[in-house]
């Protein structure tokens, strides 16, 4: 059988060649890309890794990790009692519903779970920083997104598949999901976001803490929630700390300050610090972690 016929009918290919295993067709080799002179550009598996030591990453491993272990440790002298079995939607013994997808009634209550027992292996870590900005003018004209895309690219240093890392996504466009009259329709571009991990994340955090936050007008700190705030709600149990920057803060980033006039209109942004803390009171632990990086918090 030819390779093409084998692609279309893999089962027949197996019986024809008397092989029990399903055979995969031979990979179709794509022709090499050509550069402007017409010469083939070979594919090179080169991945860029760390280009420098991250000062804040070192600070976390030298100092913060120990301190956070001590601060977030909860002593459990007796092992935890087994959790109560949840009430399931269907009776698992009834043969009619036995193998049906059976979620617990009222949801899996993930935000009400206690955090796992404290140990040196699960100390809270900063996983990623997400910058998100909704550009209202984008509904009028898509070209209004270009300035924010370039600005976020300059601030974050993120590019699609940058450095040969195929999971790097760069600056992404946020599209509308719901139909709200006069504001947003499904599918139209409405904002921009970028996800920072690794050395880029530490660099962004150090620039934020050293250049932007100290020069921000009327900024005392990220607002703290009051004592009446419940710790077992999804917001408090997700381990994410968020705050916003006004449009005036854009010019405080040194990457933007150097050619501020190149960007058509300043815009504000939301910054989300995503940590590995989960469970009741995770946001408080996330705030303790961020305080170690000199991010101020203030009573609102």
């Amino acid at each position, binding site marked *: 059988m030819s390779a093409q016929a084998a692609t279309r009918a893999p089962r027949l290919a197996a019986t024809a060649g008397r092989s029990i295993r399903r055979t995969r067709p031979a990979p179709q080799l794509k022709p090499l890309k050509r550069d402007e002179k017409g010469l083939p550009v070979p594919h090179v598996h080169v991945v860029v890794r760390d280009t420098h030591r991250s000062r804040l990453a070192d600070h976390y491993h030298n*100092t913060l990790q120990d*301190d956070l272990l*001590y601060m977030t440790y909860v002593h459990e002298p007796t092992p935890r009692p087994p959790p109560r079995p949840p009430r399931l939607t269907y009776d698992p013994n009834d043969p009619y519903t036995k193998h049906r997808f059976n979620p617990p009634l009222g949801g899996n209550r993930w935000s009400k779970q206690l955090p796992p027992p404290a140990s040196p292996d699960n100390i809270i870590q900063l996983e990623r920083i997400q910058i998100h900005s909704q550009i209202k003018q984008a509904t009028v004209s898509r070209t209004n997104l270009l300035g924010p895309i370039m600005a976020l690219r300059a601030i974050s240093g993120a590019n699609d598949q940058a*450095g040969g890392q195929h999971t790097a996504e760069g600056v992404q466009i946020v599209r509308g999901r719901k139909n709200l009259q006069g504001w947003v329709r499904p599918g139209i571009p409405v904002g921009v976001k970028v996800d920072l991990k690794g050395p880029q994340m530490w660099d962004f955090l150090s620039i934020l803490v050293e250049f932007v936050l100290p020069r921000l007008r009327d900024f005392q700190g990220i607002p703290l929630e009051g004592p009446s705030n419940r*710790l077992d709600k999804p917001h408090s149990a997700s381990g994410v700390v968020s705050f916003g920057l006004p449009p005036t803060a854009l010019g405080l980033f040194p990457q933007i300050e150097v050619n501020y006039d190149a960007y058509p209109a300043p815009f504000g942004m939301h910054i989300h610090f995503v940590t590995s803390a989960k469970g009741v009171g995770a946001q408080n632990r996330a705030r*303790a972690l961020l305080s170690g990086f000199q991010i101020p918090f203030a009573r609102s």
Partner: protein
Amino acid sequence: MLSRNAVSTCRHRSRACLHAPSRSLASVASSSSSAASSEPSTSKAVLHAAVILNRSPIITRTPTLFERAYYAYQSRIRRALFNPFPTDFYFKTGSLLEKKFAREEKVREREAFGGPWTVKRQGPESEDEVGTSTADQAESMGEEPMDPPAPRIHESDRTGDVKSLDRMSERNLYLLVRGKDHLGNEVWRFPQGGLHEGEHLHQAALRDLTAECGENMDTWIVGKKPIAVHQAPLSESVKKSLGGAELYTFFLKAHILAGQARPNGTNVTDFAWLTKEEIEPRVDQAYWASVKDILSDF
């Protein structure tokens, strides 16, 4: 039915604090954490609170030769794989600024990869583009040239001044004092002292630290929980004098942010800021065994 609005003590984790002031991150200290009655009724205990005062590293670790070569290599690869710069967004096509940027990029390329790799056609002109120093560039942009950074090795590293807080900038330093222990011998130990009636461990630790080392230090104690415990072996006579009780010393971690230690001269005569390896030969072996695992190797 447990009321969700009640703030309950976190003695047993099953009844979690669902409302807690955002300030107190650690679990609510149960009332009997520091009192002697926490021990089983058969033997009494006398508690001491000690402070491991830590000076965090001031500068990052010096990279090894391999690390420097690796980072230089990765930087060059990163530069080679850069996305093309969007000149049409930042510059008007054919403008003077665009040409200036192209010239500066050429300089940066040469710095990263070497070159020029082309045959020199016009000899004297090509010399002008290469080698604008950073000081000249800064002055051309209208900024003041930056002062060179301070040297990584401080004066106290050369002289071996163990009282200086600038020594060993890359390492973690800990405050060790020379003072009397529970037996009255002069030993090198961490600052410590006893607990007053109804006092928490972290409160006693701060009070004892200022009593032994003066109030000239800006310190912060990490949390309210101790991080290590040392049970000093006691002779029979000392045990009788303590009323048959065991002596436990609980250590709490603290950071120094500013200031310097000033020994009070009565029960503490000398002090030193030492790294982990420098502490080991000075302290008692049993004491070291209790304390060595909480000191940083870096």
